[in-house]
């Protein structure tokens, strides 16, 4: 089968853009993360797999410090995330895109205003015309140019996800954290989103962590897969390695995908 989209091979002298060491997080007695390690290299897509409630969303929220881990260290683009002051953190957050599982569109704003919102901080740097162009470009990329003036309540779930994706990518972040980008979408739209992620990876050398249960994502987009189980990294490898694995837990995931 001629596959139009394959993961770009990561460039050789591999620059580490993100590194998690011994990450721990507990909500009261609920120890969600219990020493999780992960590295992400420039231009690479890492997929994180795990059962529902295993702490995948919590994990990427720690990376942008929406949640404060109770232990461990996080380094992003050479900076110690947990030690940053507010200003530096805001600066770093602009370089790290975050796609929420719930889309999290601002429902008092139109689609266009949603996309413009992340640009506000760069208002002086980006002229009104440039901002307009960016909005147009991103809406075109997710195929929803006609929704510009609509409010999120007027969109379907899948359309919301695509707008959220456009909003995440409008600042051309160096690292993108995707929380289930294709879940709940029809297979065709899902595949389009995977292709968009790949295009981004190729064009801008974006590095991504993709949380997903989607076979398309595993097969087409992931350079590497990490399995989160009981708060730790249970296994790590390529799609083919996971496919061939005899481990019962890994096999279980692939049966259902």
């Amino acid at each position, binding site marked *: 089968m001629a596959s139009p989209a394959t993961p770009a091979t990561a460039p050789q002298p591999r620059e580490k853009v993100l590194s998690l060491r011994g990450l721990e997080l507990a909500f009261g007695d609920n120890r969600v993360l219990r020493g999780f390690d992960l590295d992400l290299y420039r231009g690479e897509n890492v997929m994180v797999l795990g059962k529902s409630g295993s702490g995948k969303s919590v994990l990427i929220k720690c990376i942008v410090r*929406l949640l404060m881990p109770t232990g461990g260290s996080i380094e992003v683009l050479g900076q110690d995330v947990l030690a940053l002051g507010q200003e530096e953190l*805001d600066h770093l957050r602009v370089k790290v895109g975050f796609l929420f599982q*719930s889309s999290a569109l*601002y*429902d008092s704003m139109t689609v266009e205003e949603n996309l413009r*919102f*992340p640009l506000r901080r760069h208002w002086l740097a980006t002229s009104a015309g440039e901002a307009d162009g960016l909005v147009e470009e991103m809406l075109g990329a997710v195929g929803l140019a006609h929704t510009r003036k609509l409010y999120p309540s007027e969109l379907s779930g899948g359309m919301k996800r695509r707008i959220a994706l456009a909003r995440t990518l409008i600042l051309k972040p160096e690292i993108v954290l995707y929380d289930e980008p294709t879940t709940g979408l029809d297979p065709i739209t899902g595949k389009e989103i995977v292709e968009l992620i790949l295009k981004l990876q190729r064009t801008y050398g974006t590095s991504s962590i993709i949380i997903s249960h989607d076979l398309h994502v595993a097969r087409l987009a992931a350079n590497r897969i990490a399995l989160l189980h009981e708060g730790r990294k249970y296994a790590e490898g390529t799609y083919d390695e996971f496919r061939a694995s005899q481990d019962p837990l890994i096999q279980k995931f692939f049966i259902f995908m």
Partner: protein
Amino acid sequence: MKGSSPRPFQVFLTEAGGFSLFVSRFFGNAFHRRFEWREFIRQSVQNGNGSLPLVAVTAFIMGLVLTVQSRPTLARFGAESMLPAMVAISMVREIVPVITALICAGKIASGMSAELGSMKVTEQIDAMEVSGTNPFRYLAVTRIWSTTLMVPLLVILADGIAIWASWVGMNMKEPVSWQLFQRQVFDSLALGDVLPALIKSIFFGFVVGAMGCFKGFTTAKGTEGVGRSAHNAVVYSSLLIFIIDLLAVQITDLMGLN
């Protein structure tokens, strides 16, 4: 509900502590150089417009009713000529500021906490945060400043309406010229009546915005939490309005302004 619910005193302490922290966080951010003017103006217009009709109608009715009802009592003491002064003073000093603030607590504080609460539970506030915009500054600071400005403005407007309504009430019995009535009112009102009431209204406005935002930002997960926050925002801000009113009367008394 499972588990033992916390005792009222504990709830009070947690809420009071949380609110104090929230208020100090506001002052930490209130004068930041990157002020969100657009959001501030949008909020001010929206809150002002939204409460204006209700405030205006209430002020009109209050002014009219108080006038009509006080007349027989004053007449019994042969002090009917004091009617404009009495109504104006009680309206401007106490009734209008408190009623306006209570209306705003019911309308603005509950609306704010519901809006911010649902933004919280649908992760919109988190989304703002990761896009590098400080949600506290963008959402809370602008809203608190806007009510701190708008409530006193609404009070001034409502004062005018109440006084005019009082004149309408006077005319229901026998015609009085607006000029005469106006002179009687303004002769009786001293700066010591108007200024404390205005300062008090500024605090009322602050409490309405701060409580609305505090309850919104601390909304617990779920849509049920949004409803409870809105409810609590109204109850707590109304209570604070009365407490401030009580403190204000003590302070003006000490300063010899009563």
